[in-house]
């Protein structure tokens, strides 16, 4: 659903850390959910990819938590009542785009889109922040997100684009057609 782009008003370093933590935590939740879906549907290769992505995002979330010290990141993020530019937290993968036969390449395309959204998000904070410390920290997040984008590109070399779409299901659910 289209929404007018808006960037959360970030006035302090704790705001930024809370927002960054929320982004990573949401991504962990989403990747873990996708991994569970793939496990349920016996797509073990993809389950592993999503678990690895969840683990990577979790490490990043913990780094932010460590940086934040005693700040209540969850409470702060809730108080900000964030309105994301695309209705969802930038790194959240679109669950509606999932399919039980999708390949790692398809999964990484979703991940790449999320990392690029996060990169654009933090770049916009750098461009608009008034506080020097916020700008500096946001610039660090930009670097990290750029690393993540490059990491996904590297992974994509391991999983080249399959010919066509995902493979046909020998026992399709649309059996009655």
């Amino acid at each position, binding site marked *: *659903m289209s929404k007018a782009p808006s960037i959360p008003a970030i006035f302090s370093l704790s705001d930024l850390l809370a927002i960054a933590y929320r982004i990573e935590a949401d991504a962990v939740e989403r990747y873990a959910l996708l991994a*569970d*879906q793939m496990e*349920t549907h016996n797509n073990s290769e993809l389950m592993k990819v999503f678990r690895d992505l969840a683990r990577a995002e979790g490490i990043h979330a913990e780094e932010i938590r460590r940086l934040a010290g005693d700040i209540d990141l969850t*409470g702060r993020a809730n108080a900000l009542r964030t309105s994301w530019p695309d*209705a969802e937290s930038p790194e959240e993968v679109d669950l*509606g785009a999932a*399919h*039980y036969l999708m390949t790692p390449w398809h999964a990484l395309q979703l991940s790449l889109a999320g990392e690029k959204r996060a990169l654009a998000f933090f770049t916009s904070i750098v461009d608009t922040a008034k506080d020097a410390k916020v700008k500096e920290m946001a610039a660090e997040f930009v670097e990290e997100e750029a690393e993540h984008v490059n990491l996904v590109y590297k992974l994509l070399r391991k999983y080249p684009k399959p010919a066509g779409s995902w493979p046909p299901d020998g026992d399709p659910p649309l059996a009655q057609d």
Partner: protein
Amino acid sequence: MSSVETRSACKPGDYKSDIKPIWCPGCGDYHVLLSFTRAFAELGLVPEETVVVSGIGCSSRIPAYTKCYGFHGVHGRSLALATGLKVSRPDLTVVVASGDGDGYSIGGNHFLHACRRNIDMTYVVMDNRVYGMTKGQPSPTTEPDFDTALSPGGTGLSPFHPLVIALAAGANFVARAFSGDPNQTTSILVDAIRHPGFSFVEVLSPCVTFRPDEREWKTQMHPAPVAATSDPGKAARRIMTDDGFNIGILYRGNRRPYQAKVGSNCIDLAELEKDFAL
């Protein structure tokens, strides 16, 4: 919502059970589950004071996936169960989950009278315009030209119009949400649970397996162009003339919720048994 006890600093994960959903990947109901847990966290609901009631169907699996009290009932009877529960335990927050088949066909009559009674509960119908669990039969909200082997040439029947019917029957809060926008769905659910009386939220939730065309819904949704009204006639006119993809709160009524006088005029059980003695 009744004056229930709430907790602060709850996380959505606190309301998620350990059971892994078995919906198809891509199903909109995953997003609805996220919205449920986020709304419960935002409201700080106490799990022991919260109940999710459902009927039968893909969407009705949701009580198993939430960590609070749950009742996975029989087909179409979720509102009847929830009504009994809320009347006898008005202190609980009751959220009812259903689908378009369970809620509008098998449970259609309960829907009308739950709206009419205006008991303080929230009814969430995940509408994918198809019976997904039983492999793709047309439901009451399916388009007349939905052409499959099960309905060759389509049913030719006009779809049921749940939001207008809810208004006409007396629902006190009417909203339409889209599962693909879980943040807004969360916000609508929070408002619906807070609003006194019977709150009805239709969540358009794609079935990507039997209605792959519904993946396109995310490009068709748009916010309702005007704010919610408290005039049911105005709301009905707006809903009848919209394109079916207006998202937001469409009606906020002021009807006083029904409250049973539980405990008053109690008849002694032994006396009652005498009346039914054969």
